[in-house]
């Protein structure tokens, strides 16, 4: 429980730094740290496959692209936040924490992870559909990009 509390606190503090820092680069670095802490909590409960997925996909791929983007556009625009927002946030967090505490959640069973049970025709069909959806989504984005590139080239050709 102590380790879980430490990991959760580190994740919350890292995300708080994301809110408070003005530099995009540091914000992305602390966001990656928060994500790694969330993934480590999975590892704490013996859910290593999910840890690997989050660390490889979210921190390894998307997190690094975000860090690269943040390093490219590394400037510090002023925040448009009114600190009055902190009040409803604190009230909401307090109500949520109290309701979770007051709910007296019954202890759940021990986590037993079985990857071999995942390979069933239903799940495979689901994964195939999901992969097809992602490919379609990325293809449409690629098409939009190519169309925009052609239009830009035409404008440059017309201008010169």
């Amino acid at each position, binding site marked *: 429980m102590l380790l879980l509390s430490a990991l959760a606190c580190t994740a919350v503090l890292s995300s708080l730094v994301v809110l408070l820092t003005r530099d995009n680069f540091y914000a992305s670095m602390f966001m990656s740290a928060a994500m790694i802490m969330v993934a480590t909590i999975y590892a704490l409960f013996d859910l290593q496959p999910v840890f690997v997925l989050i660390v490889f996909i979210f921190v390894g791929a998307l997190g690094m*692209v975000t860090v690269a983007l943040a390093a490219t556009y590394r400037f510090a625009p002023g925040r448009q936040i009114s600190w009055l927002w902190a009040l409803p946030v604190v009230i909401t967090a307090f109500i949520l924490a109290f309701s979770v505490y007051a709910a007296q959640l019954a202890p759940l069973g021990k986590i037993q992870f079985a990857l071999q049970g995942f390979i069933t025709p239903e799940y495979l069909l689901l994964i195939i559909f999901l992969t097809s959806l992602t490919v379609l989504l990325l293809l449409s984005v690629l098409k939009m990009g190519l169309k925009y590139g052609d239009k830009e080239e035409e404008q440059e050709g017309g201008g010169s």
Partner: protein
Amino acid sequence: MQATDISIIYVASFAILLIGYLTAISSKDVIRLLISLELMFGAVFMSLIPLFSAISNPPAAFGIAILTIFTSSGELLVLIYAIITLDRQKKNIYTSSVTIGGDR
């Protein structure tokens, strides 16, 4: 998994989600918006942990986790592409430049 562990996970998850929302509404550039979105997805991943012990069939929880991870990854990839396109079109990445929206 003890009830205290579940409480800690849920409270931390809610806290990260609220911080993500605050970052999103306070951001003036789309990079910060992307970062806040990733934080929110982090909070969602965290709230999925008790599912692994609540559902009697652990592969179902793993399926839900995979679906969440891949869907959110696809969404973030599209947002990254949108940021690059916005920079090429508007020559800046401020959120104020996308308030009109639509084809013009």
